[in-house]
């Protein structure tokens, strides 16, 4: 199955680099403008479940790596075929200085909360996203907190450790 998928992918999208570290895992490294056509193609091939969108901060290369993980739904015969066991992982790199990327909501509707999460934790702006507002966080950060150059220890020292103990404050008066 993986071999067929690999051949089809390489015949349609010539420039993609495909590796299979395990039998049940296919990793596709693609350029960022081929992500939408690739996702459409994979969805047509039966990988209809977008399990996760993740992100990796490669600070030495000054790049952010987007990771899309797709899998197929179990068929009506409830037998795990090769395809149903396979996770397809689509990776692409975008610039870290100007982190802007297109949204994949036209292909996968459930990408909306994932992209909102990446927006607040990595500061990626998704073009044409309908509702790019904070998802979890209640505070403002100078640097998005999941980036490698965000110094959590310094932040904790500057914010949470500055709050005094009530007993000590009351003794001062």
């Amino acid at each position, binding site marked *: 199955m993986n071999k067929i998928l690999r051949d089809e992918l390489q015949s349609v999208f010539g420039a993609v680099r495909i590796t299979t570290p395990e039998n049940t895992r296919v990793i596709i490294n693609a350029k960022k403008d081929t992500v939408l056509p690739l996702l459409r193609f994979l969805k047509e091939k039966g990988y209809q479940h977008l399990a996760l969108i993740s992100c990796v901060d490669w600070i030495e290369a000054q790049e952010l790596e987007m990771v899309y993980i797709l899998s197929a739904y179990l068929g009506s015969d409830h037998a795990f075929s090769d395809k149903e066991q396979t996770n397809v992982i689509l990776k692409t790199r975008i610039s870290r200085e100007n982190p802007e990327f297109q949204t994949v909501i036209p292909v996968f509707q459930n990408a909306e909360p994932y992209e909102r999460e990446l927006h607040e934790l990595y500061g990626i702006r998704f073009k044409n996203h309908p509702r790019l507002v904070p998802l979890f*966080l*209640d505070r403002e950060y100078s640097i998005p907190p999941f980036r490698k150059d*965000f110094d959590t220890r310094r932040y904790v020292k500057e914010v949470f450790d*500055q709050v005094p*103990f*009530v007993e000590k404050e009351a003794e001062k*008066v």
Partner: protein
Amino acid sequence: MDRNQLIKWLKAPAKMSHKYSLHAVYFCTGCGIIEVPPSITARWDAERFGVLPAASPRQSNLFLITGYVSVKTLKAIIRTYEQMPDPKFTVGFGSCPINGGMYWDSYNTIKHLDKYIPVDGWIAGCMPRPEAIFIGVTHLWTLIDKGMANGYQKYRDRYKYYRANQEQVLGTLDWPPLLPIGDGNE
């Protein structure tokens, strides 16, 4: 009733009543709440110790903080705590509310819960077993007997400082002060 405790009942009936009717708020934060369902149900049966979960904070007097407290959760904790009637007792459960635990350098987790609301007792561990909850409850009985579980009085006396700390972390609060904030000299 235990005959040995008869004198205690006659001396301080209110304290004894508080001791044996602890109603806990159904409030879940972090991973510690996973220990609470077995504690309150048939396996460990918290009702032996007079601990029962209550439907609403307005009907309860025991507040178990069961795990790490993020900034957003802190807001809910303060609102819940202020709704509870006096006398109320707070117990921090697990190492995270004590000093941050494994989240001691997290970007969104407050480290010391007792900077924001008064805490009467701590149960250390990650996670504490249900037995530890009951040991904590018996310790709380002792504290109530001796009049040392007085966090709610402290909150009243030092409300100015608690409110200042809450505002320092949460920014502007959406609700008015619970008590009048004086100049702190009263």
